[in-house]
């Protein structure tokens, strides 16, 4: 699995996202620039310039025409993917930590930070897919977090729910049309931040990563914890692979946060776990600092990781990866073929 190193950012990477076809990869970093790359060879397609602060988040719509970004300059910006033109800027009183288009691209959510005098919110904007159209100035609705602030959020299948991950380790389920709270659960250890929340390809379940050193899979319908992946390091990110039943986890402690140097060893690796059996399968080394973000190619042919070290590493899976199966899976698959 020979990685391609994407050098173009000068500061730590905050989020990476593949488009729906997987031919493009978008990355945001603390250096104020958004980059677009060809995932197959790592060539840079272009940059999106205009943000005045660290970028926290990026997402691309299903047709790869619109790009949304959120930043420490308290704005969400909408860009034309092809030209790099900024189509819309929405201003907020605080930083924007996460943006995500709905599965059909008609809605965009944004998670805003809690700061003195302002509660954390999730805002939802209608999106007109027409590049030349004027986008709505005001959100359809705003969810205000009275308790623990949301750090991440995502859309379920059919825009039915907005799922939120919180600073206190809880996960919330909101009505996708009205923004009303349906339920919340203490999915992770109390007071350990949920750092990432990514949907499965069909958005019927999702994975959360937490500073409590675990990642979990929950069902979007009832927030039931279905799977738990236990690691030995605080996690910043987790993703579900398409095609194979794996999950990829990333994290690691900064050197300055660790008291003994020995415990730092081996912490900056992407970890592969079996999604169903919850056991670790392997690790991929490479980064010189914690992994802040991992994303799986939507066709399951590779993955990319972005690190505190400012690098994006793009990996294309080899044949042994696709061939790998547990004994139990081999038997089940053989049985299915007999039937």
């Amino acid at each position, binding site marked *: 699995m020979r990685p391609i190193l994407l050098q173009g950012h000068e500061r730590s990477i905050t989020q990476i996202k593949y488009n729906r076809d997987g031919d493009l990869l978008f990355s945001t970093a603390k250096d104020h620039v958004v980059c677009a790359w060809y995932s197959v060879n790592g060539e840079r397609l272009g940059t999106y310039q205009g943000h005045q602060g660290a970028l926290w988040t990026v997402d691309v719509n299903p047709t790869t025409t619109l790009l949304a970004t959120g930043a420490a300059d308290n704005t969400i910006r909408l860009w034309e993917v092809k030209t790099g033109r900024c189509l819309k800027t929405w201003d907020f009183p605080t930083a924007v930590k996460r943006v995500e288009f709905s599965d059909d691209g008609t809605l965009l959510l944004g998670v805003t930070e809690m700061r003195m005098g302002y509660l954390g919110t999730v805002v939802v904007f209608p999106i007109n897919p027409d590049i030349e159209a004027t986008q709505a100035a005001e959100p359809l609705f705003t969810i205000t977090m009275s308790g623990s602030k949301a750090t991440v959020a995502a859309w379920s299948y*059919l825009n039915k729910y907005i799922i939120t991950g919180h600073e206190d380790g809880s996960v919330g389920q909101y009505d996708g049309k009205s923004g009303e709270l349906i339920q919340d659960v203490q999915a992770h250890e109390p007071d350990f931040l949920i750092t990432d929340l990514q949907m499965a390809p069909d958005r019927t379940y999702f994975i959360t990563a937490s500073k409590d050193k675990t990642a979990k899979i929950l069902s979007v319908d009832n927030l039931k914890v279905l799977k738990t992946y236990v690691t030995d390091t605080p996690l910043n990110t987790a993703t579900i692979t398409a095609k194979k039943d794996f999950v990829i986890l990333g994290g690691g402690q900064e050197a300055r946060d660790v008291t003994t140097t020995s415990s730092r060893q081996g912490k900056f690796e992407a970890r592969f776990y079996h999604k169903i*059996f919850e056991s670790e399968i392997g690790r991929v080394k490479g980064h010189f600092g914690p992994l802040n973000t991992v994303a799986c190619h939507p066709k399951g*042919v590779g993955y990319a990781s972005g690190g505190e070290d400012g690098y994006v590493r793009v990996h294309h899976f080899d044949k042994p990866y696709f061939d*790998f199966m547990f004994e139990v899976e081999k038997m089940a698959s053989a049985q299915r073929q007999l039937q």
Partner: protein
Amino acid sequence: EDLYEAESANKEVIDKRKRQLDEWLAWREKVEKQLREERAKEGLPEDSREETWAGEEEGDTVIE
């Protein structure tokens, strides 16, 4: 005796995994069916994204 112990431990792991696999597949079947029905009710096509991608490269052989 050691061999017997190792084998029974092994069997436990395999049984647990079998159970996990069966449970997961049953849950997926239920959820996927429900999603298809809900999409149909809203007049949406069955999500064809994965079908269009299928068959691009698929390895059925097994190494462990």
